[in-house]
């Protein structure tokens, strides 16, 4: 069991695959449903760019082993050195 206590969002690295949303909803509900995940995806209509926004009040960081973090393969979600003064940081 990991002990991750925060997530860092790097919007510029997001490719829009929405794996984070799918992983989050699945671990909580056993179905794939972005509406039931703790992540909202911002979408810039003109450029097409997307970025994950994690809902700070609902997210429990999966008890230290966030499913979204494992699902993101593009580096848009990460967790750096121990920091206890925030739970979600947008870079």
């Amino acid at each position, binding site marked *: 069991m990991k002990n991750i206590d925060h997530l860092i969002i790097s919007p510029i690295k997001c*490719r829009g*695959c929405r*794996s984070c949303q*799918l992983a989050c909803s699945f671990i909580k*509900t056993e179905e794939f*449903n972005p*509406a039931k995940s703790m992540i909202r995806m911002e*979408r810039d209509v003109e*450029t097409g760019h997307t970025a994950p926004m994690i809902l700070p009040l609902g997210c429990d960081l999966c008890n230290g082993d966030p499913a979204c973090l494992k699902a993101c393969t593009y580096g848009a979600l990460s967790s750096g050195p121990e920091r206890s003064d925030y739970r979600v940081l947008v870079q």
Partner: protein
Amino acid sequence: MARPRSWIVTVDLSTGKVDREPVDEQVNSTFLGGSGVGWKLVADRLKPGIDPFSEENLICVNPGILAGTLTPGTPKTSVVTKFPTIASDDGKHYIGSCTTGGRYLGVALRRAGCEHLFIKGKADSPVYLAIKDDKVELVDARDFWGKGIEAVNNELVCREGPESGVVVIGTAGENLVRQALTIVDKTNSLGRGGLGAVMGSKNLKAIVVNGSGGVKVAQPSEFMNVSEELRQRILKWPKRAHWIELGLAAGWDTFKHTQYPGIWPKDEWDKLYGEKTRMETVEEVIADNSCILACRLKWKIKGGEYDGEIGFGSPFSKSATSGMLLGVRDFRKMIHIVADANSNTGIDFYTTTRMIDFVTKMYEIGRLSKEDTGGLELTREYKTYLKLYEMTVNREGFGDVMADGWYRLKKEYGLEPQEYWYAGICKGVDFIYDARPSNFHPLMMSFFTRPRPHHGGSHTRTNSRNKTLEEIREQVEGWGLSEETVRNIFTEAPYTGKFNVGRYTRYMEDMMRVKNSIGLCSIYSYQGLLFGNDQARLYNAATGENVSAGELVARGERISNVAKMINVREGFSRDDDRVPEVWFRPMDSPEGRIEMQDYYQTKVLTKEDVNRLLDDYYEERGWEIEKGIPTQKKLKELGLAEYLKDL
């Protein structure tokens, strides 16, 4: 848990009536789901012999059964319709399926509980179809008519919400240009052969879908375990870092050999259209839903008269080949046409630029006159190309003939499509790849054996040159075929080289039916990362069934046979599965003479060789070799006796 139920939503554009019915469980299993079921539904509901532009034509939109899950690379949606391409001298039209990825469309359809969207009839005036869960509405789209694809896409996302999956047609589709396609989620194209024109004929400008439901699988834990195992395998692919940096701009080193049109020296092509130009132009590489091998591009032209122009999709390979064919040395000028086609008009860039190449050359040598073109001089220069492009989109003057495709050119001016010098034409569609520089690999064969001549998700290992026999064998073995079948595929013969392309193609096509039904992108099989047995594990966990890869292939075979039978009903036979003549004419290039060789380049293939391979293909299918159509025995064996009457 049992297989989650799937639904057919039928929308009649003429009456506005909407029906919702569940898919029969047996049909779902027998035809896999997704586009496999879509084929079956179209076979049952589409009246034979109709005009593709008539109200009676159907559009059946089918997200794959894994769309909306976390499984890598499963965003795909396939559409079955009767395409308006004029496919023969006697004016036949094929029924085909086309396939697309996208970030939103497939997922949105699944979440809206719309596994099969059936569209029929014709609206009185332009509409768009808005689906939000159970709510299905036809919305007035008169203000969108005449507008470009990107503008409409953006407006629809603003209106309907940020998770909207969107299919839009451009002005070419509105004008019933037979080579008009559609654009999905701004980044993906769908429907070479004229899906855009079919939508146009129905006054349907766009489809926008939103769903709030979840996508369920029968065995959640098992499904996630398999998905995770496959994800880890794909993440270890050594080329992944390069791939996700360049997406579909990657691969120039292969492409410059396999798609070489033979006019400029390769070094020169390299300088004008090579990797450097791609690196300069790519801005972002976008992933489709759940894809960990991002490939869709956002690009920006830098410098020149189109400085700052932004586009979405994949402009490089197509602009490089057409750029050489047309003698346009500035790649930005070609990319500008791709951008306009993808963002505004929705016309097929390949077909349009190649027809332009054909007619301007014909004009140059006096086979077309100024009288023929309505006074327009078809000079071989960029401004003429742009003019012809616009005239085709708008069906203006001579462009009206171009907008009906290759066979109309033949009918009006006696210009035989088989005379065209690059890649070749079959069933009225110009191939993307030319078998001379590419060699005769299975995708080449599939171009003329499939009902709709396009690759459409069939890529396998053999699309790359010189893969070892071991690599090819590994893929074939993953399809779960019998030892005898595998032995036959790898039996060397003088007319085929070390493996039998004809026999291989049959199974490649059946696997394509599987991939399109489950919604798996063929990049993963092309790169040798996911195999047939992996797909069986995913299918089983999603549906609760317990089938082998071999059984999946068998169901893929059933779908292939239904697809064939609907086309047999339209009069298609071996006569239409014709190998392009140009493949047998040597390409004399600055690099030397290039002839069509077998996969491992051991010999030049003759027409007799390829016809032997076609015999083998039909034999492997259990079809009548002379006619190239299913036998009674085969249909009975596959449980398709209802189609015996169409033989």
